[in-house]
């Protein structure tokens, strides 16, 4: 049999020739087992033949093994269940038989008119047999049996036969109306049956309607067990309808004219149509095998790929063996594999057979199509440079984890490299682990870059041959030259569309195709963040000058521009050829050079991507060479930024090998980064210093140079900050340079590391910002670590801060005289708040003569933060630093640097107890840092000095008052008053401040002292501003006191009234007390106390006597008290009466009704005395007379119809 096409998916051999056999009956059915070792033939005379297939190096041949006259008529179908040792026959007389494969003995199934059958092996269940019968002309009945194994049948109590054949157990049956004459084919598709009846295809669900309902079928009714998938139109009926099962995928292929439509179990089309239009003959039989569909026509056996729907191979019949036109042909795939051991793919089977065989039979000839292993197919395709077809196989093998696929991928990559298809090659290389392909195998492409490692690893560097389809890799230049020389310009032009087509087909195939390869296609920008290279030449960034000293780099950039055009290239073959014909010879040469550069850049980009990914995989050999090659390729690409980025990550680049190149490129930053990454901090710092100082400048413009200098400075600082990469000695040696260049960067370095202050401080310039900040950092670190404070550090911090302030603001070096009439502006922590001049309406200061204030030490009271109440001015809980700062000690937004430093100094002076106060005081005295001196004096306990500074120097009497409230006892407030009245020699008394203090601290100060301090000869007009406010304040205080006194008196009177009222309710009951009604001594009896004002109805005996039970008013419940032998005061009664609530309107109405009822009803005879007494009692209570005490018995008689509440009664003690 001749093999056409370029791919060998199957080999076919004539297995049996019965033309000269004794029995010349035609073949009507064929079957082959899964292993390809047994062939069964059904003949038109009802004979079943079993042949053994013998595989040998010479070929295959069949040997008759058994023969049996199994049916009376032609055998139409043979189904094999080799795993169960069963053969199923369907004969033309409508009988179906179940035979033992060993003996070919068996039994008939209990049915008639069978026209088709098929078997399935659902996982975990016994084999399932479906038989289509045609009992009448208008319907088809489908019967499904489950072939229960003998053991199970025995267990069920139904012995099938003596031959231990499975028992066919009826599972389901359904009937489909159909008027077609025959059932051409039937196959299991999942749990459904795909049926080809006449010229239409049905999907039958023997186990009930599918879950999706009747969504796909045009026939049947909703909820029915069948649906019509499609009917072959008349125009396409030239080809017989037939189907083939694809059991591995649960699909079926339906032939509709020139199209083979693959449907799934739901009847939905899947994938592209199998294009049968190119057969050149009518398809006569179908069979699927693995990923292929074999279509048998009168001309050949056509092998189609089910994935792409295209024909991949054609096996032509030999001229003498060609079937006659119209002859019936049969194709039988290998029998269904068992659930446990079945294999859907191609490959060798045990016993010398092959899985996936397909038997094709004519009337008297039988061919056996044997699948070629995927590895062999891939090898052949790669040998033919059919990469697209090979890729499909390789990918499938990789998905299955086949070892050959890795070899094939490596082989394909090397072949593609030879073809200068670098992107595709890299995609294959990415699939190869180091055990299959080592990145060092690419070293021959770049001999000048990898010479050092080629010799070193000479033993390992031997090129692997894989399948021996490629020649050793030459250098990249040679490779491209050979490629360009071997391809014509037209081929070069057509290369792009070809690549694009191949790329497009991968996109098309399936969703998994997109993720098949790691990096995205086409562009390298999306594969790696580090090496997302820009091909527009802008990748250099700050460290990549536009111009380059290296011709290679310049060429690389030029190639990059050419590469840009590649992505936008859309060449249409016809148009490209037409353009090519019109090209001039000169332009061809230019194009040749451009093509070379383009290929070179493609190679660099692709291999850089691959090397960067591969170097991170464990098991990569010669990593030093790989990293060096990678960096040099990046340099070739002109990607300075990527070079620096790669240099920054841990790598094994041979610095000596790349340093000349980087230096030539003037990529100093990259070179320094490389040294830094390799632990050579001194070298790196030296380069960065030179760049930052402008000694190593690129030939680029000033902006780029400035950017480079900034980058160098930042990089150097970053390296200096790293305690691992940069030792302390290197830091100290470079610190002066860094201080000179950037004190901020130096401070960042100093605060980022733990250094010895003794070694660092001498290097820091005195009175500099960086010095005190470093000291502040040390102090803060001390506090954070909880170690004892170092007085020297704390003192040094205060001194350096003060010095820095004075340097920053030289005006502060001059002290503000106390006699200054204008208060000095104060540093505040709160925006907008300025203290010192606002004193709450006090009169403005005016100069006056006074003696020096007292300087006696004052006792320190309480803690530093004292809650001060009363008085005017600033009050509350504040620290001294906050007090003199007018708020908090945190610098406000927009505060100047000097203000921030002063706040910082105040905070430090207040927070620290470790500094040398005398030394700090000495540095502050004589300067304008008065607020800081206040804090310092407060810390030292010299409150008089602090007050003097506040009140006299800063003219902030309010702050002085607040300070006094915080730090002084009230008895010492006079000292502040004396201070303003007698400020000292040469200073005028501050009358306004004195008045303010009198007003604020008036509770503790005597205005007489102010008056006495007034000069005797002072005119009244001059004294009025001083005296008048004091007089107003005193008068106000007097009136306020009078008001308070009268209010207290009113409250006293009210309380006395209440006491009288309460005492009037007291009742004293002693043993002499008698009930005023029965005149018996109360003694130990229970008695009742009725308080005045209680409701008359409540105690109305008439109401109690005449009212019904519902309307009877309750007796006073809370006015009872018990008397004991000892006198008892009925205080409880009074209290109880206060708790009694006034009657509600409803109760009042009831009471009124009761009274009216009382008026209408006559009193009971004989009770006139009681009624009079009751009215008298009621009248007494209504008149608010004294409380009435009576015994409980009289109380009941007078009006109590109900028992009082028990708790209202006081039993005798």
């Amino acid at each position, binding site marked *: 049999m001749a093999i056409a096409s370029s791919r060998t998916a199957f080999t076919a051999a004539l297995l049996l020739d019965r033309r000269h056999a004794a029995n010349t009956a035609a073949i009507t059915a064929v079957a082959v087992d899964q292993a390809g070792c047994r062939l069964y033939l059904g003949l038109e005379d009802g004979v079943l033949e079993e042949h053994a297939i013998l595989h040998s190096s010479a070929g295959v041949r069949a040997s008759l093994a058994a023969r049996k006259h199994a049916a009376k008529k032609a055998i139409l179908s043979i189904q094999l269940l080799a795993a169960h040792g069963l053969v199923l026959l369907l004969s033309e007389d409508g009988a179906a038989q179940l035979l033992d494969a060993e003996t070919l003995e068996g039994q008939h199934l209990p049915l008639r008119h069978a026209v088709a059958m098929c078997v399935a092996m659902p996982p975990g269940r016994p084999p399932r047999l479906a038989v289509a019968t045609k009992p009448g002309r208008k319907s088809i009945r489908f019967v*499904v049996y*489950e072939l229960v194994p003998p053991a199970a049948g025995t267990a069920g109590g139904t012995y099938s036969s003596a031959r231990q054949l499975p028992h066919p157990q*009826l*599972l*389901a*049956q359904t009937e489909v109306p159909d008027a077609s004459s025959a059932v051409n084919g039937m196959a299991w598709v*999942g*749990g459904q049956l795909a049926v080809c009846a006449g010229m239409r295809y049905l999907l039958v669900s*023997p*186990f*009930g309607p*599918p*879950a*999706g*309902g009747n*969504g*796909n079928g045009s026939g049947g009714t909703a909820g029915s067990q069948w649906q019509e*998938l*499609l*009917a*072959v*139109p008349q*125009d*396409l009926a030239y080809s017989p309808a037939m189907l083939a099962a694809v059991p591995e995928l*649960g699909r079926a292929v339906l032939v*509709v*004219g*020139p*199209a*083979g*439509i693959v*449907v*799934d*179990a*739901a*009847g*939905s*089309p*899947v*994938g*592209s*149509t*199998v*294009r*049968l*239009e190119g057969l050149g003959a009518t398809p006569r039989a179908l069979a699927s095998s693995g990923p292929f569909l074999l279509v048998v026509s009168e001309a050949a056996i056509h092998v189609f790929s089910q994935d792409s729907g295209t024909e991949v191979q054609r096996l032509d019949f030999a001229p003498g063996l060609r079937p006659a036109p119209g002859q019936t042909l049969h194709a039988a795939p290998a029998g269904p594999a068992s659930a446990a051991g079945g294999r859907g793919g191609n490959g060798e089977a045990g016993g010398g057979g092959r899985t996936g065989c397909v038997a094709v039979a004519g009337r008297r000839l039988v061919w056996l199509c044997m699948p070629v292993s995927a590895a062999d197919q891939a090898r052949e395709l790669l040998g033919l440079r059919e990469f697209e077809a090979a890729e499909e196989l390789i990918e499938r093998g990789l998905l299955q984890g086949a070892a050959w696929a890795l070899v094939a991928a490596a082989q394909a990559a090397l072949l593609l490299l030879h073809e200068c298809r670098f992107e595709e090659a890299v995609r294959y290389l990415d699939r190869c682990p180091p055990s299959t392909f080592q990145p060092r195998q690419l070293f021959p492409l770049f001999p000048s870059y990898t010479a050092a490692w080629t010799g070193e690893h000479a033993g390992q560097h031997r090129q692997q041959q894989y399948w021996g389809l490629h020649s050793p890799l030459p250098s990249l230049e040679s490779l491209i030259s050979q490629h360009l020389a071997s391809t014509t310009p037209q081929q070069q032009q057509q290369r792009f*569309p070809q690549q*694009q*087509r191949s*790329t*497009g087909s991968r*996109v*098309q*195939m*399936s*969703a998994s195709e*997109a993720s098949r390869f790691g990096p995205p296609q086409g562009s390298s920008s999306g594969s790696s963040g580090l090496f997302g290279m820009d091909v527009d030449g802008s990748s250099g960034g700050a460290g990549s000058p536009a111009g380059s000293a290296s011709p290679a780099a310049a060429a690389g950039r030029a190639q990059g521009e050419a590469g840009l055009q590649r992505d936008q290239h*859309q060449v*249409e073959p*016809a148009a490209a050829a037409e353009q090519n014909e019109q090209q001039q010879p000169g332009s061809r040469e230019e194009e040749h050079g451009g093509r070379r550069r383009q290929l070179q850049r493609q190679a660099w980009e692709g291999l850089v991507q691959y090397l960067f990914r591969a170097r991170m995989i464990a098991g990569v050999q010669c990593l030093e060479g790989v990293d060096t090659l990678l960096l040099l390729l990046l340099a070739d690409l002109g990607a300075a930024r990527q070079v620096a980025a790669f240099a920054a990550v841990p790598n094994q680049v041979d610095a000596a090998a790349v340093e000349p190149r980087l230096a030539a490129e003037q990529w100093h930053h990259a070179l320094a980064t490389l040294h830094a990454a390799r632990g050579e901090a001194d070298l790196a710092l030296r380069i960065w210093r030179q760049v930052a100082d402008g000694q190593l400048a690129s030939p680029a413009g000033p902006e780029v140079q400035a950017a480079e200098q900034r980058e160098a400075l930042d990089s150097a600082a970053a390296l200096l900050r790293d305690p691992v990469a940069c030792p302390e000695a290197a830091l100290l040696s470079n610190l002066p340079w860094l201080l000179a260049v950037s004190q901020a960067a130096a401070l960042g370095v100093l605060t980022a590391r733990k250094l010895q202050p003794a070694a660092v401080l001498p290097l820091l310039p005195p009175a500099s910002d960086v010095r005190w900040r470093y000291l502040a950092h040390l102090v803060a670190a001390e506090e954070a670590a909880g170690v004892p404070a170092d007085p020297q550090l704390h003192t040094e911090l205060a001194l350096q801060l003060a010095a820095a302030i004075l340097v920053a603001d030289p005006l502060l070096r001059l002290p503000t005289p106390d006699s200054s009439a204008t208060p000095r502006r104060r540093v505040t922590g709160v925006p907008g708040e300025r203290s010192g001049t606002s004193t709450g309406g006090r009169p403005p200061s005016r100069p006056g003569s006074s003696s020096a204030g007292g300087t006696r030490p004052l006792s320190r009271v309480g803690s530093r933060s004292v809650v001060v109440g009363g008085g005017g001015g600033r009050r509350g809980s504040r620290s001294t630093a906050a007090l003199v700062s007018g708020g908090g000690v945190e610098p406000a937004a927009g505060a100047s640097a000097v203000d921030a430093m002063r706040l910082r100094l105040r905070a430090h002076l207040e927070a620290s107890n470790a500094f040398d106060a005398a030394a700090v005081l000495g540095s502050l005295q004589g300067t304008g840092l008065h607020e800081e001196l206040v804090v310092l004096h407060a810390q030292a306990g010299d409150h008089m000095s602090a007050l003097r500074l506040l009140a006299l120097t800063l003219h902030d009497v309010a702050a002085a008052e607040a300070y006094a409230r915080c730090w002084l006892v009230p008895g010492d407030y006079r000292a502040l008053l004396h201070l303003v009245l007698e400020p000292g020699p040469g200073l005028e008394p501050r009358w306004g401040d004195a008045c303010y203090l009198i007003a604020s601290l008036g509770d503790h100060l005597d205005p007489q002292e102010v008056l006495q301090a007034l000069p005797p000869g002072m005119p009244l007009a001059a004294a009025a501003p001083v005296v008048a406010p004091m007089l107003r304040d005193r008068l106000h205080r007097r009136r306020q006191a009078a008001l308070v006194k009268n209010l207290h008196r009113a409250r006293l009177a009210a309380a006395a009234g209440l006491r009288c009222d309460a005492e009037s309710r007291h009742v004293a009951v002693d043993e002499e007390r008698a009930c005023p009604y029965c005149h018996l001594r109360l003694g130990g009896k229970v008695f009742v106390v009725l308080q005045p004002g209680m409701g008359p109805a409540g105690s109305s005996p008439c109401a109690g006597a005449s009212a019904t039970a519902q309307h009877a008013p309750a007796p006073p419940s809370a006015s009872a008290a018990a008397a004991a032998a000892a006198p008892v005061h009925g205080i409880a009664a009074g209290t109880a009466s206060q708790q009694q609530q006034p009657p509600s309107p409803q109760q009042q109405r009831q009471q009124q009704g009761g009274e009216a009822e009382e008026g209408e009803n006559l009193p009971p005879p004989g009770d006139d005395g009681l009624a009079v007494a009751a009215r008298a009692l009621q009248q007494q209570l209504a008149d608010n007379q004294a409380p009435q005490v009576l015994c409980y018995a009289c109380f009941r008689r007078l009006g109590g119809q109900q028992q009082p509440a028990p708790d209202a009664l006081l039993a005798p003690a």
Partner: protein
Amino acid sequence: MIDQLVQSKLVLLGEMGSGKTSLVQRFVRGQYYENQESTIGASFFTKAIPEKHVKFEIWDTAGQERYHSLAPMYYRGAAAAIVVYDVTHPASFDRAKKWVLELRQNVQNPNLIIALVGNKVDLAEDGARQVPEADARTYAAETGLLFFEASAKTNVNVAELFDEVADRLPRAAAPQQPAGGIQLSEQPTPVPAKSSCC
């Protein structure tokens, strides 16, 4: 990163030679072939539009009349349909109208998006236009169709067409695909035992 893509079935229908396959080839592969072979049965393509979170499963059907009976298999369950006509062939526009009518009658998805596309608009510049744009636009407006005039050859409105369809998809929930595969819970229907007379 392609994640959470909604798979949507899209089918192209139209007269033979109207350019369905060219439109799909241009959209999926960015290519155009002057002499495109006729489609047999149907071709299947996939194309993801990550920014719109859509993955199209495109069925490019054959336009020949003899394959008409196969079309229901392909447009059944579709979330969107693109009906293509050739602006230089009035008959193809009439055929497109029939396709729209058939879709309206046979597709049960009420949210089916139908786009009417007049292809080969590049030829209209040469005076070959036979279907006025206004007529097609009016028809599309009357029947609630998206309308585009496109050219697969010059890549006019091709991406815009699919983008617009993708934009409409989230508001039109694609119907669930019919359940396929093996029913794991499949239970054989019990066969009633034959009644016997005794």
